[in-house]
């Protein structure tokens, strides 16, 4: 395993139980290391993408737009403008003479064609370099068209995804406070950091509805510009995927005095705790809300737990590796795997913070490898060395696991199965079970070798 690890990255890997916990993180990726990370633009794009009635125009050469065309499983209950990929497709002459004119013309053309409720303009790497004043173009187009035209300062090289999240939050914040909130209930919240992958936000909204809580704005899953404009009317922000929208929650707290709580809709405890936390927050204003929350949890668990037990029988003792974008997801996954009787032996993230990793270290079993901003060489070594049965990750991790004959659960923005909520836990168990118990593993070299040695599968 040693030689797969870059000297400069040794302090970004830790095995729990090996001395005091310390993990370096939030660094620039190492040149030549094939990081699994993306860029600032990716962070912004991923957060704003699900706003379905906005125009998302990527200002730059074609790549950034075309690689993010319909990239996520973020569903909309209405308009689907977000599923189209718009670009200024800058050419050499634009790079030389500047792209402002083209940007303006493209915006006017697309706004006229699609009549969006707002437009987001994403600055890509070279836009800052060639000196286009994106903000000025946006102001001018907003004045002409009468819709909010919002620059997103997401030049790719200016950091990693986290800076992109921040740029997206700033963009969203320009909308907050501009809508009419006169009819918003005092028992209301905004859902932050859920992107409605495979319809997940609808599951969560249903729980809140059953508790008697009004959801003002989805930020951003199945999102609408008008809702975001009214989000300052909500009494509470519930923030999932803390990396992506936490900054927005903080800005809203400061400006509008809206408190926020961190939640997670993945797994049983975290889902239930999230509902209870919301109930706790509103218990004085909404009598009976705690009972209603308990009722929701009871009803859902009555369906879920017996089914989960079935899956657990086959999964007990199997070993899991987790590598995800943000660390928050890892916390919930570790707990979720405990319900399935599975043992997490590796956990890592692209953009976890010091606090995230410290928390991870406390909830992981001894001997668990914790890793920040990893790469294929390291991940494949760990998978081999730790003899993992199932890997949870995204598109770029999938072929690593599959190539080595390891099961895989897609836990990424492309997923087509809802994994949030109680029903999501069931889907999760189903998917994990489907992969980990497939009869095909007997044919993959690492299992074939064991079978030959008589050590079973």
């Amino acid at each position: 395993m040693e030689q797969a690890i870059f000297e400069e990255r040794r302090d970004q890997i830790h095995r729990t139980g090996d001395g005091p916990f310390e993990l370096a993180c939030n660094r620039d990726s190492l040149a030549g290391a094939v990081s699994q990370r993306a860029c600032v633009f990716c962070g912004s794009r991923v957060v704003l993408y699900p706003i379905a009635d906005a125009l998302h125009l990527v200002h730059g050469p074609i790549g950034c737009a075309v690689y993010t065309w319909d990239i996520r499983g973020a569903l909309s209950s209405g308009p689907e403008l977000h599923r189209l990929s718009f670009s200024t497709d800058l050419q050499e002459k634009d790079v030389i003479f500047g792209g402002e004119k083209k940007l303006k013309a493209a915006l006017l053309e697309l706004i006229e064609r699609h009549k969006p409720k707002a437009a987001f303009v994403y600055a890509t790497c070279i836009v800052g370099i060639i000196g286009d004043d994106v903000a000025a173009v946006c102001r001018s187009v907003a004045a002409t068209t009468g819709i909010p035209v919002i620059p997103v300062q997401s030049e790719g090289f200016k950091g990693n995804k986290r800076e992109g999240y921040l740029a997206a939050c700033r963009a969203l914040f320009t909308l907050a406070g501009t809508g009419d909130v006169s009819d918003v209930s005092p028992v209301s919240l905004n859902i932050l950091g859920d992107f409605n992958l495979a319809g997940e936000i609808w599951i969560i909204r249903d729980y809140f509805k059953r508790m008697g809580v009004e959801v003002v704005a989805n930020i951003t899953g199945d999102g609408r510009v008008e809702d975001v404009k009214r989000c300052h009317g909500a009494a509470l922000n519930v923030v999932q995927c803390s990396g992506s929208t936490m900054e927005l929650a903080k800005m809203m707290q400061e400006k509008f005095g809206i408190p926020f709580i961190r939640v997670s809709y993945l797994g049983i405890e975290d889902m239930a705790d999230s509902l209870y936390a919301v109930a706790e927050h509103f218990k004085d204003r909404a009598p009976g809300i705690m009972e209603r929350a308990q009722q929701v949890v009871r009803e859902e668990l009555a369906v879920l737990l017996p089914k989960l037990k079935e899956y657990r029988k086959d999964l007990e003792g199997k070993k899991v590796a987790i590598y995800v974008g943000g660390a928050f997801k890892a916390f919930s996954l570790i707990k979720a795997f405990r319900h399935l009787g599975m043992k997490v032996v590796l956990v890592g993230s692209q953009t976890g913070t010091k606090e995230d990793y410290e928390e991870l270290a406390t909830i992981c079993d001894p001997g668990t490898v914790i890793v920040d901003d990893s790469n294929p060489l390291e991940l494949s070594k760990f998978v081999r060395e730790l003899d993992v049965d199932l890997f949870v990750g995204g598109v770029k991790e999938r072929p690593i696991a599959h190539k080595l004959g390891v099961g895989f659960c897609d836990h990424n923005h492309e997923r087509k199965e809802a994994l949030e909520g109680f029903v999501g836990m069931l889907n999760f168990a189903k998917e994990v079970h489907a992969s980990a118990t497939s009869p095909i593993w007997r044919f993959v070299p690492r299992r074939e070798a064991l079978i030959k040695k008589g050590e079973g599968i």
Partner: protein
Amino acid sequence: MSDSPYISTTNACKLCTPLGAALAFRGVEGAIPFLHGSQGCATYMRRYIISHFREPMDIASSALGEKQAVFGGGPNLKKGILNVMSKYGATVVGVASTCLTETIGDDVPRLLSEFRKEFADLPLPEIVHVSTPSYAGTHMEGWHAATAALAAQLVREKAPATRRVNLIPGFVSPADLRYFKEILADFDVAATILPDISETMDRPALLDYEKIPKGGTTLAAIQAMSGALGSIECGRADHMAETAGANLNRRFQVPNHRIGTPIGIRESDIFFETLEQLTGRTTPDKYRDERGRLVDAYVDGHKYVAGKRAIVYGEEDFVIGMVAFLAEIGVKPILAATGATCKNFKAALAEVTAGILPTPPEARMGVDFHDIAEQAGELAPDILVGHSKGYRYAKAMGVPLLRAGFPIHDRFGGQRMLHVGYRGTQELFDRLVNTILERKQEDSAVGYSYL
């Protein structure tokens, strides 16, 4: 050069230049594709490529940050190359620039020559560089430029003349390349296929993760190209000043045969004739039989496809090849569209349909899916032919999509799809007929059990 009336681009029918270069570099043994730019480019392209091939695709990046964008990316480039040398054990590093590094003005050739001097004491890999700003051209320009760079920079002297053929196949599938290899072996001739992603992008399940996947054109085979009997370069579209084949011809007088991507009987015939001419062998019976079966299939299936109106879109060489095929089976290609721009697209479409179609199909370059869809209403197609990204339009138009080429993101086995030669054409023809039959059967209330 663009035929689009619009300023904005919606759902582009092209990818960016460095993606093609990264893929081409993956076709060289022991090579690591290396993007000189910000981290996101490599990651996005990996994701895009992985979703088609379902294979690991490691692309290194110099991962420039804000500081480097201001002061130059040289130090990161050098450090990155050292890292891929030590960790990946790369024997070839294929460095492709990006829009960022081209715009800040990094002089990659100079940086690399500095690198070679600074680290002259180390066993250095071959470092090939190609300029691929994403604001100029498409992924196909990137592919061809990287291929040309491999020939121009790695073939340094005239190799001893050998009975060898250079095949520069263009961007085709691993299955296509395996078929090419089989053909060349059956012609009993040594061959260099440049680049060769047949193994690197379609590996078996393994015990250990390969830092660099096995396979790809070997350095020795690349260097032997200058002593070959000749080069066969597939793809009629003119992209660049000098292709790999033209470069070898200019410097080492290796005869270069530019032919079309061999899709359809006529384009495949040209391929086999060229091989016969170069090797002095006649086409083995195996392939004559394949051709015979294909003709037989054309006869059996011709009425199912007769007069069907097809819109073909995608990479320029793919489109030209598909139009050649569709025209000869009686399908009417009513629109040939590409996001790329190349001088001779229209002329090439005229060449491959001459004598069959009264007029060549309408050709549009530099268009996106919005342009194609806007025109599709009046064109009333029966079928779309191209990669996965046309699906939403096929669905909206209520017509089937024959998936072929790259990328195939919504179906399984894109890397194993065969397009070229008699065998590939057979596969395309079978799939096309079945696509049409399936639609006919589904649309029919009768539910015919014989079709």
